[in-house]
């Protein structure tokens, strides 16, 4: 209860991850350019891979709404799961986007209604503008509570231990202990 009271509404209650969701209107006439730029971004070598706090990121151009055909503008939905627990972490992340992927920030959000033309040149301004367009998650489910670095580390360790266990299966107790001591550097980083 207390944790829920003090925890940021977009942060998971039981994990240090933050659900970032923003919805911004695209300037009329720039819809196709924004969509084309986003689609041209490599998925295999995504710009978001340069932001180490990103678990998942998604960009969607909302060009229609079911049951409501008269929406005037197209909108850009940006959602990401990032390492973080509060709005300060969110702002740090948004500012780091300006430094790590300025071309994307300018080409995508710089064409948003009400956005400065080159938002990446003003990271705090970009973070504040995005924060003003943030949507609150009413519920956020997380299967696991770990940072991106912890997840990658755990996957590597499990894979290494599996291989190690297979080749040390029949070792005597003293040989096993020596082998573990020799190979386990990095398993608990």
């Amino acid at each position, binding site marked *: 209860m207390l944790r829920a009271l003090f925890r940021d509404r977009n942060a998971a209650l039981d994990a240090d991850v933050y659900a970032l969701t923003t919805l911004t209107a695209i300037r009329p006439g720039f819809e196709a350019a924004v969509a084309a730029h986003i689609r041209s971004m490599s998925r295999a070598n995504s710009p978001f891979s340069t932001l180490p706090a990103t678990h998942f990121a*998604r*960009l969607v151009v909302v060009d229609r709404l079911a049951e409501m055909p008269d929406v005037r503008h197209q909108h850009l939905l940006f959602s990401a799961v990032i390492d973080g627990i509060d709005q300060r972490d969110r702002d740090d992340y948004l500012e780091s986007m300006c430094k790590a992927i300025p071309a994307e920030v300018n080409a995508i959000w710089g064409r948003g*209604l009400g956005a400065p033309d080159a938002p990446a040149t003003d990271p705090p301004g970009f973070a504040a503008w995005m924060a003003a367009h943030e*949507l609150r998650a*009413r519920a*956020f*489910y997380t299967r696991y509570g770990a940072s*991106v670095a912890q997840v990658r580390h755990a996957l590597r360790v*499990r894979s290494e231990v599996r291989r190690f266990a297979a080749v040390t299966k029949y070792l005597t107790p003293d040989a096993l202990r020596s082998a573990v001591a020799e190979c386990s550097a990095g398993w608990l980083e």
Partner: protein
Amino acid sequence: MYSYKYWRLRVLLFARRWIKPVRARAVGQLDKLGFIHFARWVFIDKLPTGTGEAKRLRPIYLYFESNFNGGFEEYIDAFSYVIPTTMKRIFGPTVGFPGPKPATRFKAFIRLRGYEAEHFYSAYPEATAGEIAAALRTVALLRPVLTDEHEDDHAFQRAWRRFLTKARL
């Protein structure tokens, strides 16, 4: 004027955050499905216009996002047949919701209202949610084996084997 189903959903989402047993049950159900990394539910009641004044949306929209491994068909099948009551409670207030069963109709409902991402990124695309949970558990179980004092080599070997069994390696 919203239906009682809408208010029930708001109460449910509120309770999910504030009442621990409700939260544990909801999380347990999704954990049981096993293939979801993260999911979120967001109400959208206004649209930005760029002028500072937002356009009020009526009806309110429910945005549901899920990062999961596997295919769309199996995903919705699991929702339809494993947790149909939860599906009814969540999507019950939405316009045109046909019910969770049969899954074919539910899938058509979602396809019509779903959005394809123009860009999608995952930091660990090769790993399923279950594999990640297992890997994190492996590290947690490994810690005491490597840091605890062991009486002798035989005691270490027993601890190591217990670890392999618990970690399912």
